[in-house]
């Protein structure tokens, strides 16, 4: 990530940790005590850090990290039996390395044989992968034909699923939400499973949302009706895809759960090159999968982009772009009526720190931007926004607000943010004075993700 030979920051290292426990364990190992023969090579684009860590056994663990980014990100190797990836030894070693020359000298020396061999194997693998596959007409053509048939079959399955779901929704509305009130969770779970069978994971997720709508009386009914209505619109959109404009059809496909291939997208879509500032990076973990969202803001285009990266089985998502870096790169937006999600293409230069906050608007502008985005994509829950000069108003009881410096208006903070640490961090940084905040603005309120103090701080 830093081919110029710069050491990373501790934040960059900690962002690689697959979970909080690894983060903690890694931080503990970031001390010179257990390490021996630690060294680093930061020359050219073949950066690496290595070291031996004394554990409870008689043999020390051998840990090596490839910083060069062959194959999309840093690579880790450790002789310990941990199934976490990267393991605490790799994290501890990197953290120690961030502390500077005294902790881990970067003499430019060659790594020991055990580390050098692994690094070389990794480099060769990356080179092989970079070579274009040899074209072979026959099988490829068959593949294309087979793929077309597969996608047709899937489209039919989804259409059947959407029709069934429509039936379910209209039945519900005929009998009334009041009648379906008690014990409605089970049937919805079953419907969600049917949607998974129909290969429409997007529909399945929305059905599960329906089951989770809670609250009492009229309020619950209102929210159920909203969700049912939007789901109904999505079904109708899918069932009449041929009558939709191409961009909206793409949005509907995505929302139903048909993913497009990132590599194919990069090969076909027109790239947008810009100096992309990383506005925020946030992980969510559902126990099986870590989803990392990275929001980018283009300096010249002024556009926002969202990159997604996943890590399964205890691995951290591969892509890590710490907040506050700017990278000169191509991105390709997934086709959509309101493009936001994108995939990172060619990077033209190494990321460089760019700590200033981009210019933003006031509370009304953030809501307006969300409203305008809804015109293209009515299913949008929220839209990214930078608000300048807002003062956080803590409200453990009445709910938090971000108040405009002038005019007495405010954005309510999404109540699902609760009373969490990030909001208090925002309040502490603000100290009652206006700050710039990046976040997502939606119909439930604003979710703060980053503020600037003056360097960016994740919330």
């Amino acid at each position, binding site marked *: 990530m830093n081919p110029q030979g710069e050491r990373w920051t501790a934040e960059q290292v900690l962002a690689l940790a697959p979970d909080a426990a690894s983060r903690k364990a890694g931080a503990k190992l970031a001390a010179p005590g257990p390490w021996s023969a630690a060294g680093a090579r930061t020359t050219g684009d073949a950066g690496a850090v290595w070291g031996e860590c004394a554990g409870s056994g008689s043999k020390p663990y051998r840990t090596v990290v490839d910083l060069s980014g062959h194959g999309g990100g840093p690579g880790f190797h450790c002789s310990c039996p941990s199934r976490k990836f990267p393991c605490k030894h790799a994290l501890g070693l990197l953290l120690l390395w961030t502390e500077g020359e005294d902790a881990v000298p970067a003499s430019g020396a060659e790594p020991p044989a055990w580390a050098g061999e692994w690094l070389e194997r990794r480099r060769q693998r990356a080179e092989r992968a970079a070579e274009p596959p040899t074209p072979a007409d026959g099988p490829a053509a068959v593949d294309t034909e087979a793929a077309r048939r597969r996608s047709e079959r899937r489209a039919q399955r989804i259409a059947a699923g959407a029709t069934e779901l429509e039936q379910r929704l209209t039945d519900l509305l005929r009998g*009334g939400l009041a009648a379906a009130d008690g014990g409605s969770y089970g049937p919805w779970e079953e419907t969600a499973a049917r949607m998974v069978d129909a290969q429409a994971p997007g529909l399945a997720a929305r059905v599960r949302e329906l089951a989770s709508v809670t609250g009492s009386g009229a309020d619950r009914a209102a929210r159920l009706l909203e969700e049912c*209505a939007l789901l109904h619109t999505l079904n109708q959109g899918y069932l009449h895809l041929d009558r939709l404009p191409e961009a909206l059809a793409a949005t509907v496909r995505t929302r139903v759960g048909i993913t497009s291939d990132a590599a194919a997208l990069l090969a076909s879509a027109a790239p947008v090159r810009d100096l992309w500032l990383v506005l925020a990076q946030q992980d969510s973990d559902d126990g099986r999968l870590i989803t990392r969202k990275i929001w980018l803001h283009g300096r010249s285009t002024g556009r926002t982009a969202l990159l997604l990266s996943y890590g399964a089985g205890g691995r951290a998502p591969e892509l890590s772009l710490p907040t506050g870096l700017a990278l000169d790169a191509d991105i390709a937006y997934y086709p959509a009526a309101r493009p936001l999600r994108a995939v990172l293409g060619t990077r033209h230069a190494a990321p460089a720190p760019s700590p200033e906050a981009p210019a933003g608007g006031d509370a009304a502008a953030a809501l307006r931007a969300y409203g305008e985005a*809804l015109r293209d994509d009515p299913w949008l829950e929220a839209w990214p926004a930078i608000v300048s000069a807002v003062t956080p108003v803590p409200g453990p009881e009445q709910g938090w607000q971000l108040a405009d410096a002038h005019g007495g208006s*405010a*954005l309510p903070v999404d109540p699902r943010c609760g009373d969490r640490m990030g909001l208090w961090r925002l*309040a*502490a940084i603000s100290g009652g004075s206006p700050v710039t905040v990046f976040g997502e603005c939606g119909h439930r309120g604003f979710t703060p993700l980053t503020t600037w*103090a003056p360097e960016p701080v994740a919330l």
Partner: protein
Amino acid sequence: MISTWDELVTAALLGTERRTPPTRPRPGQDAAAALLDAAALRTVQRRAGLLPVAARELPEAAPEDPRPSLPPAARRRLELLLADRAGPGGGAGRRGSAPDLLELLPQWLAAANGHGYRAPAALLPALLDAARARSDLRPQALVLAGPRALWLARLNPQWKYALRGGPAPAPGTRPSDVGAVQRVWQEGLFSERVALLSSVRRHDPAGARELLATTWPRERAEDRLMFLDSLREELSLADEPFLEQALSDRSRNVRATAAELLSALPGSALAARMAERARSCVGLDRTGADAPRIAVEAPHECDGGMQRDGIVAKPPSGRGERSWWLSQLVEATPLDTWCERFGVTGAAEAVALPVADGWQPDLHAAWCRAAVRQRDGEWSRALLGPATSPPAPEGSSWRDPAKLLSALPPAERAEWVAEFIATHGLSEAFRLLGVCAVPWAEPLGRAVVDALDIARDAGSYPWSFSGVMGLAERCLDPAEADRLEVLTALPDDPEDGTGAPGAVGYWAEAFQRLVGTLRLRATMRAELAG
């Protein structure tokens, strides 16, 4: 047909079979689908038309904190230390070879405060949470956190503790600012006033006493007691008139504290009165055939004068009242009195004198308390005796070496404890180590490490020494790390089968943690120096 959202919700609740919805279906469309269409339109309409809400009252601006911010490396260190506060690996079991970061937080905070830094605003919530969970962190954490943390604490009920007795005076009051001092003293909360008084006392002892005198008669008894206690710092003979006056206080506890403070001033009139009384009870008996002995005649009554001077008349249960009164008299008597009384030249000679009729434990115990109270190095030294003499058996000890040590200069303290450990090992050393200055002076550090090394060779498990090991991690001079490196090597298990199984491995691990922690402390110190 235009219908309101509420009408749509009502229709949805009841069901289109029961009530015709206020929507008009397209040809061929059923009523339920038409209702969903209309609801979708309304939903998106409402979401797209959202407007800002009216802002509630803004919080007032946090006070400025002019202190310099932490160097970047130190800031990251604090972040790591705070991230570790959830507890070291569940607490139970072996501690492994990695440093215990949480245990280093107190000294990191003290060092950062020594440099006069302020905490980064973004870390204030984590710092406040950490200090909420551990009250021993509070004083240092709140100093580092500064006025902005108090501002924040007023907004979050969970951090209310920070507003109760913080060590820092109310933001903006410097002892030199007379107006502000007066205002806080007259109007402040109790905790603010206690903090203010001790901070003024440090800069201007007489000023603090005068400040206290302005409101003294109006204070509640328990407040008078706390305020009086803050005069303990910087105590001098100039405080005597005020304390003498407090001897007639309405509250018994205030009287006792005033007497105790006066007796710590060997030149005070109270000390002279005590000396007078003590002289009549304790003398030298030269009549016998043997060497002269100290003869004791304990007081027969506790008169009004004695009680006014702080002598408590009623003994604790199980204690004779005459010996109780004697102890208190001797404890409050200037130690100089005795050399003159016995005609000896120094404390050592006085302590060596035999005592008649079994009064020795009472007399020496009272002298110990007097030596600690009067911070008398010579008497403390004499009462401690050489470090090589056997420690008093548990329970019977009237000597409290840890307390006596605290009256000695730091270097001497370290030397005494080093010698004690070299002679007696580590098992009795924990409390003594606790009163030694950090980082440990070189002879002390060596003695502890040697003793640990000996314990290892003796084949015991390291966790029998985990208390001392933990202290060593926090208190050894980081410069010792290189010398300790050799102990971290993993030798083979002793072939003769002596020693506990696997102990050598655990010891290597424990020493690795020790060295690692020392190195980390050196790094932390360098980071704070910037």
